[in-house]
Structure formats: structure tokens, C-alpha cells
């Protein structure tokens, strides 16, 4: 006998204070809070920020950390290939070289820094930040814009429009 009696619904919801904004079923995935959902999970956030810092640290020291399986096997770099090294260069103050290696290094460096700071925040502040980021994502679709821009940039680099791709 299935669901003889459905469990009573109407869970007690914890109120969030976030301004509602753009939402459309058609552009659902573009404006879906993504970064905010990561920020709501402390473990997820800490792992991403921590491992990203280790990865950039290894690249700064000239060591290889996480390697791209697509690039290793096919020889074709993926849209994010070179980001670790570019971010390491950016943090070292070699901004021009960093942008030459990967133009999105400054954006990603700021994002990783932001996640790292959020990861060590008290829980209440962390949730507050997550709500603000969710509102921003819903309003602007910023994560999907950056992701799509990276794909376009990748296409331009592969086609040679932006010169040769740096060796990674």
C-alpha cells in the first residue's frame, strides 16, 4: 500500500530576507542561484575555497596540482585550462602576463578570495552573504554570464583570433 497517508506537509520555513527579482521559466537555469547554493553549505564552500587556494599555491610554486584530463588526453585545452597559473601570476602582481595566460584570472581570483573569506565567516554572516549573492544572481545571472563568456573566449582562443594559446 503506497502512501496510505501522505506525510503532512507545510514544513516550518526559516525566513530569509532577500529581495525578489528577475525570474523566468525560460531563462530558469541562467538566473538560478548557483554560487549562493554553494555558500549555504559550509563544507562545500570550505572545500572549494581551500582546494582552489592549494591549487593556485602549487601553480605559484611551479608545481603541478590538478591536471585537466581533457587536455592530457586530447591535447585540446578546455575553457579553464591555464587559470591556476594565471591566477598565481595575478596574485604575484604580474597582471599583464596573467591576463595573457587567461583573461578571466582576475575575476576568478576575486571569486576564490570571496569564497575563502565567506568560508571563515560566522554562520549568520555567511547566510546573509549567501542571500545577497542569491539576489544578485537572480537579478543579473552573473555566474552564467561569466561561464558563457569563458566559453566564447575559449572559442576565440582556439580559433586563433586572440593569438596563440599559451602553453600550459
Amino acid at each position, binding site marked *: *500500500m*503506497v*502512501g*496510505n*497517508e*501522505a*506525510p*503532512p*506537509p*507545510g*514544513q*516550518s*520555513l526559516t*525566513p*530569509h*530576507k*532577500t*529581495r*525578489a527579482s528577475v*525570474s523566468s*521559466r525560460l531563462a530558469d*537555469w*541562467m538566473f*538560478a*542561484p*548557483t554560487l*549562493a*547554493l554553494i555558500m549555504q*553549505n559550509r*563544507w*562545500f564552500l570550505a*572545500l*572549494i575555497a581551500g*582546494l*582552489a587556494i592549494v*591549487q593556485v599555491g602549487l601553480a605559484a610554486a611551479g608545481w603541478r596540482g*590538478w*591536471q*585537466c*584530463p*581533457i*587536455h*592530457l*588526453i586530447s591535447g585540446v585545452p*578546455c*575553457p*579553464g*585550462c591555464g*587559470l591556476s597559473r594565471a591566477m598565481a601570476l595575478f596574485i604575484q602582481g604580474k597582471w599583464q602576463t596573467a591576463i595573457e595566460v587567461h583573461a578571466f584570472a582576475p575575476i576568478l581570483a576575486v571569486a576564490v578570495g570571496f569564497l575563502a573569506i565567506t568560508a571563515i565567516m560566522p554562520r549568520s554572516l555567511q547566510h546573509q552573504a549567501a*542571500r545577497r549573492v*542569491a*539576489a544578485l544572481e*537572480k537579478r543579473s545571472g552573473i*555566474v*552564467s554570464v561569466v*561561464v558563457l563568456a*569563458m*566559453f566564447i573566449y575559449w572559442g576565440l582562443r582556439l580559433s586563433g583570433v586572440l593569438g596563440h594559446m599559451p602553453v600550459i
Partner: protein
Amino acid sequence: MPTTTLIITGVMSIIQILGLIILLVMLVKQFKHGGVLHGLIGLITCGFYTFIWGWIKHKTFDLTKIMIFWTILIVSPIVVFGVFGMAMVNEMMTLMTTLSEEGGFDKMMEGFDKKSSNLKSRKIKNIAKLPKKGSDKAPLAKDVDWSQKAMALWKNGKYSDANKALEYWNNAIQTNHKSAEAYNNRGLAYYELKLYRQAIKDYSQAIRMKSDYSVAYNNRGNAYYEMLKFELAEADFEKCIQLNPKYAPAFRNRGLVAFQMDKKVQACVDFNEACDLGDCEGLEWAKKNGLCK
């Protein structure tokens, strides 16, 4: 030609190929369960994000085995170099000495290429002979009342063990207990596991099977609320109220959504309505925070 170098190269090639296969499998799972944006982020981070996501969600999506295997593949190059590293250095030193005495790298490279390609093709054939995944899986016991087992876990407005509840509802649905209630109840398990996308799919399925299922509308509204999609949540709570005007939680939930959307007057009206129907939690909260009088 040094044998250790050949072994390392062969092993490394196999590790890299398997690493790529697992990344592609995991990306498909991430697109399916996490959504398009999470999948794309996994792709642009060369699988780095996918790897972390996989470990965070391994229990929920039953990814433990594949994640352990992937982790072993990532760690194994360090072990391979640790074990064979010194032997390789010694062999390379001997080789360099021999080459400088006998001359030429060309012969060495020819032999290396042949052996390396033989090794790769042999391994690929072996993989192709492996039995299909899941062929030895035991069939589910049809005489077990999975739904009853799942319902036994529902205590004080939630499942005492959401993972188990999800497993039981999966079994119930697989053994042909495909009812709107089953989907709604599995949706609640997903909800507790914070898998709102999956929860919404199940609630929607329940609504498709039973269009006047007011409770499923309310539950779907809750999931939309957690995903911060307030407009969709509001529409679902409204539909629930329309189908069942005496259902207090839907009023309270619609009040909360109204509050999120800065419709404070509407929020108070809904909290009061919920209280009249016996659920005063929302109104108490609103009064405590100075929202309603």
C-alpha cells in the same frame, strides 16, 4: 630501453584515459542532478569542481564507488612515481651512459613507441570484455512493503533518516507502486536532503498524476522557496489554497513568501488567516519581529 620507464608510461597512459572517462561520466551526472550551470562550471574548471561536488553529493546520488575510484586515479601517479621514481632515475642514468657510448636516440624512440602503443591497445581490449554494469544486480523483493517501511520513518513532520526513506521510496516506485502519494513522499525525502531540484521533479510528477493534489502544490512551493524562487513558490501556495482553502500551512507559507517579496501587508493577512485556521507560528514570528500588530 629501460623497462621501468616503459611501465610508468604505460600505467600513466591508462590512468589518464580512465581519469578522462570518469570525468565525462561525472559531468553527465552533474548536468543531470546538479543542473546545467553546475555542469558547465565543472567543465570550465577541468573537472576540479565536479570532483568536489561528487564528494559532497556522493551519499545522495550513490557516487561513493566512482568517487573512490576517481580519487585513487588522482592519487596513484604520486604512488607510481614514489615506488618507481628512484629505479627510473637509475635506469635513465644507465641509458644515458649507454646511448652516449653507442649513439642515437632514434632507435630507442622507435622501440618505445611500439611497446607503448601495444600496451594501450591491450588494456583497451580488456576493458571492452568487462561485463555490463549492473548485470549481477539482485532483483528487488516485490513482496516487501517498501512504502510502509518508508512511512515508518516519518516522525514529527520529517523523516528520521531521509537517506533511508529515499531508498525505500525508490524501491517502492521501482516495484510498481507508482502513485502520486509515492512521488510526493519521495519528494519530501529529497527536500530534507536539500535536493530541491529532484524534489520539485517528484512533486510535479505527483501533480501530473493527481491534478487536485493540494498538498503536493504546497510541498513544491516549499522547495521553490528554498531555491529562492519566490514567484513560483507563491503561485504554488496560491494553487494549494485554491484547492484546499482550509489548509493553514499554505497560508503561513504564502505569508512568508509575501514577506520575502516585501509585501508586508499581504504577509500579515496570510499569517492571520493561518492563525485563524489553527497555525499561529507565522503570526507569532511576525509579531516578534515587529512585522504585524
